[in-house]
């Protein structure tokens, strides 16, 4: 089984601080890390390989330093990595990014499952996974919290890593997964190949072994540019991005925080009073909280 995982290198948002004078992001000392959600996707890919055999390829679109992120997942046990990096990709929004990744996945060929983390910690859009699925015309399951079954189909022979089929043509192969919704989860069955985006609940990512780290240091990380992807230039980078950022600014800081002081009884009474003044009251049986329901009820 060939499994492809798409990862992104992002700034560690825990380190990102706002400069109090200029109100802009302070970049010094901010580590670049593998997007946290992508680690769950990588771990799931490795588990699929452990169960079914095959290989895992990680790809990432980014500037040259994104190679470090690919080495980190190689150290976890990913078999191969490719870095998609080219000036032509600069300025990509999620439309152009998902197009670029889709072209790389097409070039790699033979993927049964394509995995993404739910969203990236810098853009936070969660658009690229479904966008790639749409570009590749593949079914998708988002918010996957558990893969229940994978059936590789065909005549029952175990999945082979030399299998090389085009999308939409893996007869009999399917996957069943649990997809998280706001009030529960649904169980979804999809034929393969398919795209999955995974949430934090799905697994606990392994730490790289020392052997893995050493191996990853030596591993080649080929770089693919626009030429290697047979991509249409008009769909790449800035030209391929329907959206553009007009302005960036800091959020208004919350003002007027008040510390309530005194004995426990005093502070609780003060707090309860402030909340009542703001219109918060006890409800009976949860009527104040809204659920999915019809309007005007």
């Amino acid at each position, binding site marked *: 089984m060939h499994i492809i995982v798409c990862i992104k290198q992002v*700034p560690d948002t*825990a380190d*990102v601080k706002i*400069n109090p004078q200029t109100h*802009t*992001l*302070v*970049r010094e000392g901010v580590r670049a890390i593998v997007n946290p959600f992508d680690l769950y996707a990588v771990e799931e890919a490795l588990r699929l390989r452990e169960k079914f055999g095959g290989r895992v390829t990680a790809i990432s679109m980014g*500037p040259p330093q994104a190679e470090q992120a690919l080495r980190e997942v190689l150290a976890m046990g990913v078999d191969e990595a490719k870095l998609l*990096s080219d000036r032509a990709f*600069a*300025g990509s929004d999620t*439309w152009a990014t998902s197009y670029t990744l889709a072209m790389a996945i097409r070039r790699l060929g033979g993927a049964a499952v394509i995995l993404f983390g739910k969203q990236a910690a*810098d853009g936070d*859009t*969660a*658009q690229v996974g*479904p*966008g790639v699925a*749409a570009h590749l015309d593949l*079914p998708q*399951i*988002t918010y996957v919290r558990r893969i229940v079954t994978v059936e590789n189909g065909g005549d029952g022979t175990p999945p082979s890593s030399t299998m090389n089929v085009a999308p939409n043509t893996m007869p009999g192969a399917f996957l069943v997964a*649990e997809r*998280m919704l*706001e*009030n*529960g989860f*649904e*169980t*979804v*069955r999809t034929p393969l190949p398919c795209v999955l985006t995974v*949430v934090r609940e799905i697994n606990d990512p392994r730490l790289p072994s020392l052997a893995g780290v050493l191996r990853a240091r030596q591993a080649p990380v080929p770089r693919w540019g626009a030429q290697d992807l047979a991509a249409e230039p008009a769909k790449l980078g800035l030209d391929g991005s*329907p*959206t*553009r950022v*007009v*302005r*960036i600014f*800091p*959020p208004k800081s919350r003002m007027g*925080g*008040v*510390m*309530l002081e005194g004995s*426990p009884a005093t502070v*609780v009474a003060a*707090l*309860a009073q402030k*909340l009542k003044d703001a219109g918060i009251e*006890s*409800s*009976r*049986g*949860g009527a104040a*909280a809204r*659920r*999915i*329901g019809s*309007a005007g009820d």
Partner: protein
Amino acid sequence: MSDERLKIDVDRCTACGACVEACPFGALKLERVAAVDLLRCTLCGACVEVCPTDAISRTERAPVGVTGDSWRDVWVFVEIEGAHIHPVVWELLGEGRRLADALGERLCAVLLGNQVRGLADRLVAGGADRVLVVDRPTLACFQDEPFAAVLAELVNRHRPAILLCGATNVGRSLIPRVAILTGAGLTADCTALAIDPQTRHLLQTRPAFGGNILATIECPVARPQMATVRPKVMQPLAVDLARSGEVQVEEVAAAMLAARAMRIGYTPEASGTASIAEADIIVAGGRGMQKAENFQLLEKLAHVLGAGLGATRAVVDAGWMPYSRQIGQTGQTVCPRLYIACGISGQIQHLAGMSSSEIIVAINKDPEAPIFKTATYGIVGDAVSLVPMLTQAFLDA
């Protein structure tokens, strides 16, 4: 480089470094003068604004293709579960109404489902001038592919200028597919929308970097301009049963309704408390609650207030609460009227999930806890003893 999109006028540059500090992406550095790394630059323009000598300019991309004039109206996708309309739809209709009025165009609700024609009148009462309905048995429950195909078809057929959708699990799965199918630009999780009075473009503002910054985005050429909006961010209109609107049933080819991924089961979360995604009030607990059993205290408070019950990642990792309750960067983002943070220190990844709550109450033993910088009301104390007292105070009221 022949197509430099960001140009630095070396004669004007005084190497003051303001641009280097302003750049959220680390794309600028000072050599003799400022220099830009085009691979990192996203053309956000933060540097252009801060340069004291106007040494930096962005070359505007000439619009390609036909700009939006022939694309009209504001659309709202109606997310439903059975016969229930998701509350975010009313908020989108409220915001959509304001945008349509600013444009002098119509607001149209788009409803896909099975046996849903009867819901159309409520959508008109909620602000829609028009409701487009596709009513087919195979659309009885949400599935990504047929919904995306049908919505894309309707978009191509009617050419709306703007399409709004709730940033729910459904919306965030569906709309990116539609954006690819229609070549549209999509901005996720918008917290503010406005019409630029000169260009008539939709200005979409949203948080990024875990909420550390806000970005305003526009889609100058491609249509429709698509945006998802989180629940509880926009304001609904007052229901007006006297409002009139037209309902139009649309037919689509059967081939569009084919779905490869199929729902084969649904397991609701058994819970006595409200869903946190839509709750007006949330009571949330962190490691400061000390042990799993103490969450019963929070549950009692939640019951009394009719609130949802949330948790930090540390609590979920410890197995005290299920992942569906996790609030924060790798969990859910919520926007209630009131957020009561009990024994939560306020790490930035948690704040990313709740900092836009209207009123934040924080109870924590540690006076240095970061959450106190964000809280509206802060109490230094042990949540385990204070929460039951607060519960009682509300019961006594």
